[in-house]
């Protein structure tokens, strides 16, 4: 019974998939494999949904429309009128993370969002987009972001460092929140299951007791489903909130 962390080890899916270019290991790992599956599922579902755009939406089209309107309403509320240009980006991030999280609930599946490297890259992407669009839209006025309006003059010395720190902490908390939630959730599942395995290994009479951890796991999996959806939603909505700074600074 491997240690609970074993499920997060990134390994090439097959010995033949081991590739290396001058020392850099670019083998095709289970993480990239599950990312491809997630991307394939997203594309499949959404093309199914948008295939026949008839007025009376079929089941698949309703599914696509619900997702579209959910994210569109979120972008509309959080970034306002000229947030439309960010909608495709937020929609892609939301769907990619949601599919990743949900795929992770299946046994033997690999949740790529449980690795800090994946969530870190996503949140850094959002972070640099905020800076790039901020500078593009507002030029140097973008740095007035660090000085909120009508702050009493004697507080300015304190506010600016705090604002700068909170600006640079964003990608860290943004990525660690998603990664830790996914990893800890799956970890708890595995630890609880190892109780029933331990009970089973203690003899047949004790094995009957092994059913209770499995029942606990049913509840935990439902909670994991909730956490998976909420964390994808929170990642998307926080990306909207951060992008709002680059659209209109403080007003």
């Amino acid at each position, binding site marked *: 019974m491997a240690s609970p962390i074993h499920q997060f080890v990134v390994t090439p899916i097959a010995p033949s998939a081991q590739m290396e270019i001058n020392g850099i290991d670019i083998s095709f790992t289970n993480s990239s494999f599950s990312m491809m599956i997630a991307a394939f599922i997203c594309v499949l579902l959404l093309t199914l949904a948008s295939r026949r755009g008839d007025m009376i939406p079929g089941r698949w089209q309703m599914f696509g429309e619900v997702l579209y309107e959910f994210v569109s309403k979120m972008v509309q509320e959080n970034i306002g009128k000229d947030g439309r240009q960010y909608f495709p980006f937020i929609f892609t991030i939301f769907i990619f993370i949601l599919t990743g999280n949900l795929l992770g609930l299946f046994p033997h599946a690999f949740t790529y969002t449980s690795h800090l490297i994946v969530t870190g890259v996503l949140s850094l992407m959002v972070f640099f987009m905020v800076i790039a669009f901020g500078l593009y839209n507002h030029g140097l006025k973008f740095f007035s972001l660090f000085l909120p309006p009508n702050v009493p003059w004697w507080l300015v010395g304190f506010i600016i460092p705090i604002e700068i720190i909170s600006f640079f902490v964003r990608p860290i908390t943004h990525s660690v929140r998603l990664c*830790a939630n996914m990893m800890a959730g799956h970890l708890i599942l595995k630890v609880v299951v190892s109780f029933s395995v331990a009970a089973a290994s203690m003899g047949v009479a004790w094995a009957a007791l092994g059913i209770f951890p499995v029942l606990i796991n049913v509840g935990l999996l439902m909670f994991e489903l909730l956490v998976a959806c909420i964390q994808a939603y929170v990642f998307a909505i926080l990306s909207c909130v951060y992008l709002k700074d680059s659209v209109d600074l403080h007003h």
Partner: protein
Amino acid sequence: MEVEAAKLIAGALVVLPAFGAALGLGMYFASYNNAIARNPETKKLLDEKFFLILAFIEALGIIPIGVGAALLFG
């Protein structure tokens, strides 16, 4: 203190923040229900940010568990 002992102690101490998250969730839901009980129209306003705040409080409880697990099993 050997590394092993320190690891196990760290693994045990990691569950304490969940106590804070539990308190936070309890207070949050209590205030949510009180607000709606006092004025049912606020339900629409509160529901906009409901899941966002829920996730923040939940994250504070789970991030330490993630870090502790990385310490303990890493």
